[in-house]
């Protein structure tokens, strides 16, 4: 095993091949997991589960890879489809690399997954991991601040704000001078509490971007918000109950800010309660109140005066038992795609009354009830298998903070990466986006852009001619280089950086020190000095007689080896400074002396 690795790591490091292999989120949405290999470094980006599948089926195709070989695992944000498989991967595989995420992501990850474990305990017996695994995984996760540069064995990376949700990051990686940007999920529009995704100041050589919304163009933010509040107002005005299934964290906070503001400006609605049914949100309150550093300028300024995450019109609903279903109300409940849990329960209770309404406010994955409901079926099947007529109104107002075509194409236009890899998008959406991007750049002479959309487990292979640049420093570089000059020195390789310096400068430029070894071998010697001198002169013909340490000595090989003759003790000692050549000389001298000793 070890041998095989030794063989593979050598050439891999020299190879110019860069592969990007989606193990999930390749032409699909869900279970984001992308493998990146270059110069022998293996990086995994995100490790999510598929929300529409359960148990082992929901995992990305991690059997394609050797978890042990992965150097680095980066998690962009706390959504289940980006970090849901992490506890499993950290605790149930041989992975031993390092894991990074932002502070806010880590804090929410803990509670979000704990909630996920509880919720799915009801529906699946086949759990991927337990609460204990989750707790253990916390110790292995390291945190990184936005813009902070981290170097892991020659892979340098740093994060940019990505919008989307609190703590969401885009990761820029640099391996041997090649820069790769992975956007994760991102949004280029500033909203109530998050900033728009930043545009990196350096252009990447390769962009791995999400393509969730393909060529769709989002409504303007104010129009969308007006439609949202208007729809809710209509529903409650007609005496109906309004259900908004949401992910417990992330976009929900944005909707709460909108609702609280709308209620504040409409006193006539004050009788109608808004509930936010999530124990998780309550738990994560402290996180939202703490990591304001990851939010936009507005919030950061406001927080100095009062906390905007203290809502005046929204009550928390701990459980369904507390809920008194007597009249019009607005309820935000998780999960966002109504797979199970409270939002499903409420939906099943309310769907037969035409006064009621459901507003799907986020992105829905194929195979979930929320997606099914959007196709306006006349009947739905409950979790218990019963068929119910669907009479309540269904609206779809997307608040999911993913980029649309305008934002994505603008982002690409600014960065101009030579290669774009699309991930995290349904097959059709992705194909449309790809076609649109190809069209945009096909007549452009200046920009040569290749767009890839690999399927799961299919690798995109790119070649980057890795130039190895070395910096010549110190006394070697006192004069500018000229044609044909010979440079000899120590080449130091650290990560992917090379330096060439003179051995004498080693200690002043690095922590390394040089040393020398002086050797001395002694043996009994009874013959006269003249014989010693004669024999050694036969060997080298440059034997010189000197006085060393007050004793007679013969120096040979240009003085590099000296043989000291001690009359009184009847010994000779051979002295030299260790060196590959001199060691050989010394051996030759020794054999001569041994010959004299054995045959005087």
């Amino acid at each position, binding site marked *: 095993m070890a041998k095989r690795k030794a063989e593979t790591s050598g050439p891999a490091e020299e190879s110019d091949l860069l592969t990007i292999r989606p193990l999930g989120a390749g032409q699909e949405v869900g279970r984001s997991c992308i493998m990146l290999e270059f110069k022998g470094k293996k990086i995994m980006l995100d490790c999510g589960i598929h929300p529409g599948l359960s148990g082992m089926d929901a995992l990305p195709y991690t059997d394609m890879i050797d978890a042990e070989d992965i150097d680095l695992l980066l998690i962009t944000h706390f959504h289940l489809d980006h970090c849901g498989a992490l506890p499993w991967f950290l605790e149930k595989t041989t992975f031993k690399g390092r894991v990074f995420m932002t*502070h806010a992501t880590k*804090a929410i990850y*803990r509670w979000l997954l704990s909630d996920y474990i509880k919720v799915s305990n009801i529906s699946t017996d086949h759990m991927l991991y337990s609460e204990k695994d989750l707790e253990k995984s916390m110790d292995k996760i390291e945190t990184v*601040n936005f*813009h*902070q*540069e981290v170097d892991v064995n020659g892979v340098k990376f740093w994060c940019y704000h990505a919008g989307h949700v609190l703590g969401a990051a885009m990761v820029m990686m640099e391996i041997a001078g090649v820069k790769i940007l992975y956007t994760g999920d991102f949004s280029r529009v500033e909203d109530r509490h998050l900033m728009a995704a930043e545009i990196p100041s350096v252009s990447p050589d390769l962009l791995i971007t999400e393509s969730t919304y393909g060529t769709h163009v989002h409504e303007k933010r104010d129009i969308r918000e007006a439609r949202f509040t208007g729809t809710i107002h209509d529903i409650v005005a007609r005496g109906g109950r309004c259900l908004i299934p949401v992910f417990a964290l992330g976009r929900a906070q944005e909707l709460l800010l909108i609702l609280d503001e709308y209620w504040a400006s409409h006193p006539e609605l*004050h009788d109608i309660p808004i509930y936010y049914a999530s124990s998780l*949100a309550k*738990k994560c*309150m*402290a996180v939202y*109140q*703490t990591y304001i*550093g990851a939010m936009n300028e507005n919030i950061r300024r406001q*927080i*100095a*005066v*009062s906390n905007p995450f203290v*809502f005046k019109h929204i*009550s*928390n609903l701990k459980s369904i038992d507390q809920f008194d279903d007597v009249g019009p109300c607005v309820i935000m409940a998780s999960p966002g795609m109504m797979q199970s849990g409270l939002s499903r329960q409420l939906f099943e209770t309310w769907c037969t009354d035409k006064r009621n309404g459901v507003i799907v406010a986020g992105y829905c994955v194929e195979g979930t009830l929320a997606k099914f409901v959007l196709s306006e079926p006349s009947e739905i099947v409950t979790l218990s298998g019963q068929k119910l007529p669907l009479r309540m109104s269904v609206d779809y107002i997307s608040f999911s903070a993913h980029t649309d075509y305008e934002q994505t194409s603008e982002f690409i236009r600014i960065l101009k990466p030579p290669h774009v890899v699309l991930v995290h998008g349904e097959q059709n959406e992705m194909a449309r986006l790809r076609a649109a991007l190809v069209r945009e750049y096909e007549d452009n002479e200046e920009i040569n852009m290749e767009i890839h959309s690999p399927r799961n487990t299919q690798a995109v292979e790119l070649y980057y*001619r890795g*130039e*190895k*640049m070395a*910096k*010549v*420093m*110190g006394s070697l*570089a*006192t004069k*500018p*280089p000229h*044609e*044909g*000059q*010979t*440079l*000899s020195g*120590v*080449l*130091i390789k*650290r990560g992917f950086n*090379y330096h*060439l310096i003179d051995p004498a400068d*080693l200690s*002043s430029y*690095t922590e*390394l020190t*040089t*040393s*020398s*070894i*002086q*050797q001395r*071998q*002694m*043996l009994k010697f009874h013959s006269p000095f003249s014989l010693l001198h004669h024999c050694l002169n036969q060997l080298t013909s440059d034997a010189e007689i000197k006085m060393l340490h007050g004793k007679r000595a013969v120096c040979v090989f240009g003085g590099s080896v000296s043989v000291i003759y001690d009359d009184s003790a009847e010994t000779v000692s051979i002295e030299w400074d*260790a060196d590959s050549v001199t060691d050989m000389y010394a051996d030759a001298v020794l054999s001569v002396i041994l010959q004299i000793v054995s045959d005087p």
Partner: protein
Amino acid sequence: MTSIIKFTALSGAHDEAPPCYLLQVDDFCFLLDCGWDPHFNMATVESVKRQAAWHLHQIDAVLLSFPDQAHLGLLPYLMGPMELKCPVYATVPVYKMGQMFMYDLYQSRKNSEEFDLFTLDDVDKAFDNIIQVKYAQTVQLKGKGHGLTITAHAAGHMVGGAMWKIGKDEEEDIVYAIDYNHKKERHLDGALLESLSRPHLLITGAYNALSVQARRKERDQALLNNILTTLRRDGNVLIAVDTAGRVLELSQLLDQVWRNQESGLCAYSIALLSNVSYNVIEFAKSQVEWMSDKMSRMFEENRSNPFQFKHVTLCHSLADLAQVREPKAVLASMSDLECGYSRDLFVQWASNPKNSIILTSRTAPGCLTHTLVSNLKLPSVDLEVRKRVCLEGEELEAFKTKEREEKLANEASEKEAEVYESSDEEMETGDHQATPTSPSLPPRVPKHDLMMVEEAKARSSFFKQTKSYPMFLCREDKTSWDEYGEAIRHEDYQPKDLPPPQETLPMDTEAEGDDKSEETAVPPTKCVSQTVSINVRCSLSFIDFEGLSDGDSVKRILSIVKPRQLILVHGSPDSTNHLRDFSLSSLGLAKGKLFTPHVGECLDASTESHIYQVKLTDSLMSAVGFSQARDSELAWVDGNVQFTSAAPSGFKGQGEGSGDGVQQRTPLLNALPHNQVKGHPSVFINPPRLADFKQVLNKAGLQAEFSGGVLVCNKCVAVRKGEGGKIKLEGTVCEEYYKVRELLYEQFAII
């Protein structure tokens, strides 16, 4: 290629005055910190002005290390009255907490004297220029500073504290690190100066070179014992702290201790008193990601914000403090006792032998704290007690007349203008300062919007708690019950006739009695000062909570960092000389590479640096074999420089953004043909320690023992270390000799 590096100390060299230095790298001029001493000594300013006669508009960037007055106090003055305009770089917490420091300082001064060196607007203006950065974030400078990068690294000491690394062309690093703390503390992880190893130039302080610190545990215990004994004898404890730096460590420590049932402290009260205490703690809560790993882990796992205090009461004024039940422990700003509530409390409490006053830092020379720390047995001190008192008698009359005249004049002008908006305007100004316009009447009420936030405290939950419907007002006081009956509210039993001590010192009894004076909310005031001799009868102690590395550690860190050039600043002459002598003897620095500048002296640390790039060809690289030494791989190369005519088009340089126009031609380094390779002497890199080598020998089954510093193996081979790291191997001609030698060679990276 020569880099020009010039360094001028404007303040804080060969003494303990606040640091302020000018550093010029090529054409770019940095101002490293800009501290102002607690007395607002104009000499510093003069020095800056004189030095900066041509510098001031030449300063291209300011780098701030810490948020306290000693590191950025001068900033509002520079940016305000002196009209310095340039970007300022600081970490996010330094930005936030720096503002807190400045607000508190301004307000503390304003509470007791006329203060007009700068205004709060200057503070805001100065902080608007700050570019906030994160740790390990590389900022590329533009314009004149093209090619320079700056990076902040965690320095401990205070939240957001930074050591700055100024890099040029990725190789020539200048590191500016003063007042760092390498030790882990409750709320901060230590500085890792070691990770910035082998800088080209290190600028560091000698402040603590001679200090010896007690162990953290003993120190904490001393503090707690002091507090506990004082509180138990019914005395009050004053702990002088700063506004928003070290106070976090202390308040966090004390709150934790108070939580501990066994400490016996829960029966007493603890308060944090400064003009901005609420905001400081709010900001601290939102800076968990800047604090120690332990803190953020605690937060991630329990969602309990470490600065969500259970016991520490936050107070903004002496009146607030009076509400806190005695006996109490009070953390009050400023730590130098020159102004602020700590000074007020000192004046009040020092003469009572029951009380205890704890000083936590030495602060700058000339401060009351500094005087007290250097002589803790001082029987009495002469203090200038400044206070703001209400006008009375003739003065009041004079003021009233003046006011009336002004009012009349105002009305007259209003009539002339025939508009009524002016009353609105007056209302507006009235919002900010309760007293009508008069230059001699500075506002009592804090002007800044950040100051008044008490309402926000009431509501800390995420959601609304109860639903209210429109109805007639009916205040229903909820009564809470426990097993002893209705809970007692202290407010109900407070004597109503005693007005709360309104920011006036209790000794000026004559000042109380002007209730009738004015219908305005805040009576007109003036500032008076008198010199009072205060008998220090309380117990006075200094417990070092400065959070700075101690002398031994400073030296140890220096010997690991091993800078190639060193500038020593910020320390008394003794400690500066001490550290200089140490550096000369232990760091192997040549005389010309070590500087201990005096204030105003401009020293030239320019060096010729030789760097150029070559491209390693595949033929060369395939021939070399690397050997590992620590974190790097080493190999010997013999190469041949070759300038190719056409650089490959796909070339991507390391230095991104280096300007597309100036594409430098990079020479190739080819492998030298075998017949031309001259042999080179073997280089033995990274010598092992003899003790480690002994382990290796033992593992290999060879008997090895130390005898008088010499490692003897099997009684026939000896290994010893000579001077200069030279290793000597001696032995008889035997099998062991070769075995030992082989093992010894394996310890090195030999190329």
